[in-house]
């Protein structure tokens, strides 16, 4: 396998982009990534685009080809990949594989979603396409509901308290205030969080990520293409992807996602590092309790200690396990298909030392992107080239 670099990054702000077509969001992010890398776009040999629900929510499919056409790419293979909320991470891995395997020297990974124009019931129904709708779906379960179920068990088993979970929300909303791309940074304390509307007990409104529009893109190159790159490149140490059960009945434990555990093990092995070597993490905090469960699944803290780490400030920038300095999904936003690409965008900025909420001397970063009821997971590890 050849060494692969992230040579250019681009992103729209996350939030509301009412008048901009979904393909235009993707084209803007991708064009920025190509220009930043300083590479002739005719050199791009493959495009992978992560998207989840453009069909049901915007009526537009064939996004990969549409975006390539708008960018003026050659007659290259253009592929949309779908893995619910992990679509972006999976698109990244396929672009990585196209180069690592020697099929091409330059590849583009794009993620995009447009959601805010739809009403909540329509969006919830579209997102529920990520569930096994012949089993869990018939009960009326939702994704916030899945994490409400997980929270009850986590609280019972580990004594996790409401105010500890609120510490995740307070941190990520504050981090978002520092990120110009974030949808909803805020200063929020536990009192304000517990006064927000109940969504799926015990999850309240501020425990949930917003619906978002946005796109992010990464230009990947073979390491031997490096000498004339314009922006500071970052090395991809690992790109792991796994599957887990698509239904609740297939999860023996509601407090862990086996797809995350397996993807983390595979990624650490591929990179030749352990969780303790990671300096900065962007993980899939679709809900506050998810950040706690994901951190434990990734081995960032001992099982059952995720809530205490958050409450003690250990996951803040400046703590020993900085998680989601971008604001995460809770604050930066969650345009579903873009999220996995956006996490890598943020991590590349950290490893370049250019992030607006910089983790000091960050050399190794990890991203974690989880889809459906844990049916798909992507874990990637990136390294500063001089580290």
């Amino acid at each position: 396998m050849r060494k692969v670099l992230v040579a250019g990054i681009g992103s729209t702000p996350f939030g509301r982009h009412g008048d901009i077509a979904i393909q235009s969001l993707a084209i803007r992010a991708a064009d920025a990534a190509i220009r930043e890398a300083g590479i002739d776009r005719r050199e791009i040999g493959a495009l992978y685009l992560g998207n989840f629900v453009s069909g049901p929510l915007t009526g537009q499919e064939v996004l990969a080809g549409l975006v390539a056409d708008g960018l003026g790419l050659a007659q290259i293979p253009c592929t949309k990949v779908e893995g619910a909320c992990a679509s972006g991470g999976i698109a990244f891995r396929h672009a990585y594989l196209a180069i690592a395997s020697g099929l091409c020297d330059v590849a583009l990974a794009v993620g995009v979603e447009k959601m805010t124009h739809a009403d909540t019931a329509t969006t919830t129904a579209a997102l529920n396409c990520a569930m096994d709708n012949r089993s869990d779906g018939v009960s009326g379960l939702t994704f916030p509901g899945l994490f409400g179920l997980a929270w009850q068990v986590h609280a019972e088993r580990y004594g996790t308290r409401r105010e500890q979970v609120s510490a995740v929300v307070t941190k990520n909303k504050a981090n978002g205030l520092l990120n110009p791309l974030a949808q909803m940074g805020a200063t929020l304390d536990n009192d304000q969080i517990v006064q927000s509307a109940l969504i799926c007990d015990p999850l309240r409104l501020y425990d949930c990520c917003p619906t978002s529009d946005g796109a992010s893109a990464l230009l990947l190159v073979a390491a031997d293409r490096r000498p004339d790159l314009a922006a500071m490149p970052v090395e991809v140490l690992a790109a792991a992807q796994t599957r887990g059960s698509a239904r609740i009945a297939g999860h023996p434990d509601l407090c862990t996602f086996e797809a995350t555990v397996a993807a983390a093990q595979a990624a650490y092995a591929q990179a030749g590092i352990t969780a303790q070597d990671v300096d900065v993490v962007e993980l899939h905090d679709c809900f506050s309790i998810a950040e706690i469960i994901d951190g434990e699944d990734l081995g960032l803290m001992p099982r059952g200690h995720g809530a205490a780490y958050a409450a003690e400030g250990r996951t803040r920038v400046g703590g020993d396990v900085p998680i989601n300095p971008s604001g995460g999904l809770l604050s930066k936003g969650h345009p579903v298909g873009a999220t996995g690409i956006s996490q890598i965008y943020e991590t590349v900025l950290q490893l370049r030392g250019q992030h607006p909420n910089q983790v000091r001397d960050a050399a190794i970063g990890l991203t974690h992107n989880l889809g459906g009821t844990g049916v798909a997971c992507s874990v990637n590890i990136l390294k500063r080239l001089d580290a």
Partner: protein
Amino acid sequence: MPDPVLIKALRCAACGRLDPGPRDLCEACHSPDLEPTELPGDGALVSWTTIRRAPTRFKGQAPYVIAVVDLESGLRLTGRIAGDPDRLRLALPLRATGEHDGAYLFTERTT
């Protein structure tokens, strides 16, 4: 309490493995020979949540209580709870007492 209902499930004719279904191949031995069976609806509560913002199809029903239930036969199901959610606690004994659109309704088991 209301009369119990039986749970429709699948049993693998080759190895006997139970599955809540639907499923095309046995999860254990991959046999396609899965036969419909009915199981007693007694079990215990694994977790629950009250859905207050429902998807389009269930919009008129919210709020409603979703539960994960482990049946005594070992099957895990996602269903609904009938009655007062304030009485719920983990491991509460439950019994299936109804079915609606493929989802089972569970009630606290008092006998």
